[in-house]
């Protein structure tokens, strides 16, 4: 008999015997701690040891490279006492609120616009020049204009982040639509799909894999814009914290801020990847 179903979800329903259980545990262990994961852990550990040794040997000034202990102490301090009157959690929360507001706005505008642009070359022709023009502009170059236009409150910050997120999302939506095979559109029409149904039921889900790639790029780029957004008139936010610390040469705070930002970004990226895995199980499988 041919194995016709390529992937059948299997559920082990009967209770395993103790022996099987220990064998299973071993397999689970092997699956979690693959050679690759161990190597990754090892190389992170190696960097950490190098860092400790270098700062122990006092080859460079503490201000240039704070010791792991100092960074850890700074972390505990801001965890307990906050930084400049705001708790660490609130700094992170403020940044995330800005990030997600901008991101949400970008998702609900850039994606529909991108889908329509992808479908109609004429609309695309009208919109593309602006996107292509502003996309590579350094956010810092036009931030002052945004502040002049929108003020110093969250608006200008959110718009800056919004613009950062917009272009990658728009572009991924356009390219997603362009990649839809003509047969799929034709097929849907032959099955009686109307124009609106075509968009919501066929074009949108078809683009999901591309849109997730766009989401990841967009969140990455928005994230790198975060510090710029918190340069003006902010007194909170994880980006502002790093900037402020660099004003007073607090390398320990800069370090801990950067580590927090890096870990947060990896978390966000992981979350999107997980969402993608759940929502687009067919990605890459034809």
């Amino acid at each position, binding site marked *: 008999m041919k194995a016709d179903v390529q992937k059948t979800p299997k559920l082990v329903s009967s209770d395993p015997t103790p022996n099987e259980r220990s064998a299973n545990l071993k397999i689970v262990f092997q699956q979690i701690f693959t050679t690759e994961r161990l190597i990754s852990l090892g190389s992170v550990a190696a960097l950490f040891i190098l860092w400790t040794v270098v700062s122990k040997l006092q080859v460079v000034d503490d201000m240039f490279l704070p010791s792991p202990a100092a960074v850890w102490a700074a972390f505990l301090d801001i965890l307990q006492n906050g930084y400049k009157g705001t708790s660490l959690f609130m700094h992170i929360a403020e940044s995330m609120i800005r990030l997600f507001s901008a991101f949400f706005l970008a998702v609900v505008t850039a994606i529909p616009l991108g889908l329509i642009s992808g479908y109609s070359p004429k609309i695309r022709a009208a919109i593309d020049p602006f996107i292509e023009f502003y996309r590579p502009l350094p956010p810092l170059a036009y931030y002052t204009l945004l502040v002049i236009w929108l003020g110093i409150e969250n608006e200008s910050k959110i718009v800056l982040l919004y613009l950062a997120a917009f272009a990658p999302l728009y572009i991924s939506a356009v390219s997603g639509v362009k990649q839809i095979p003509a*047969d799929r559109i*034709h097929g849907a029409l*032959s099955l009686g799909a109307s124009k609106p149904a075509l968009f919501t039921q066929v074009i949108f889900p078809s683009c999901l894999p591309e849109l997730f790639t766009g989401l990841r790029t967009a969140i990455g780029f928005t994230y790198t814009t975060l510090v710029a957004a918190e340069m003006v008139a902010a007194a909170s936010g994880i980006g502002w914290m790093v900037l402020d610390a660099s004003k007073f040469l607090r390398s320990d705070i800069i370090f801990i801020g950067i580590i927090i930002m890096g870990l947060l970004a990896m978390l966000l990226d992981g979350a999107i990847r997980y969402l993608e895995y759940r929502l687009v199980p067919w990605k890459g499988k034809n």
Partner: protein
Amino acid sequence: MNTSHALNLMKPDPSKSAPLIQLKNIHLTYQSNNKKVEALRGISQDIYEGDFICVLGPSGCGKTSLLKILAGYQSATQGEIIIEGHKHVKPNAEVGVVFQHPNLFPWLTIQKNVEFSLKMARVPKMVRRKTAADFLEMVELSKFANMLPHELSGGMKQRAAIARALANDPKIILMDEPFGALDALTRESMQEHLRKIWQKTNKSIFFITHDVEEALLLSTRILVLNANPGRIEENIANPFSQSLLTKEIRDIRLSNDFVEMKEFLVSKIKGGPAEW
């Protein structure tokens, strides 16, 4: 034997005079860059209810182009398609299409794929669930109703695509080399089952293939197209369509008549690759 209609094998045919679909003098010329390619010239053909028409022809003779015009995906440079007296210009639910590639919606389960056209027609949920289940049963995929397309094999996907086209209850189903990508064995069983479905539903089928045996084992009528420009070279009633109902396929295949008919058709398909 130009436009004579083959025996309808399934049932008495009271209305021989009213074809379901008429292809009227279809011409198609592609304009690519500064070059014109005449893809089809003067194709006329009547299709009646219950017809199973197979189209043979060398690569590039315009088979797919003809199918696209029939489906309404593309408009002819000249000529028209008439379905039950009305001009057919846009793709709609009357004309079902099965592509060479299964072309299912990858984000919908098999069940939801088959339901798609019913949802578009705003058929109530309960009804469409029942209808889809019936068609999945017909193509023997009931067990896989809740799986996603990528979890099935090529043959199963193609069957689901056929079920999807049938669920929509179109007047005619167009198929463009639907079994071309399958291996020989899967292919044979798909052919058998397509015949069975066709017999059960008595749909009209317009079926493109480049496999002469396939055409002989399925059709009631065979059109042979040739290239440059694409035109109908032969239009013959399939002499085996009657015996397919009664005899073993194996015996038909071994018969001398069959082998000779095959060789005859092959010899009619000219204009193959110029090289080698």
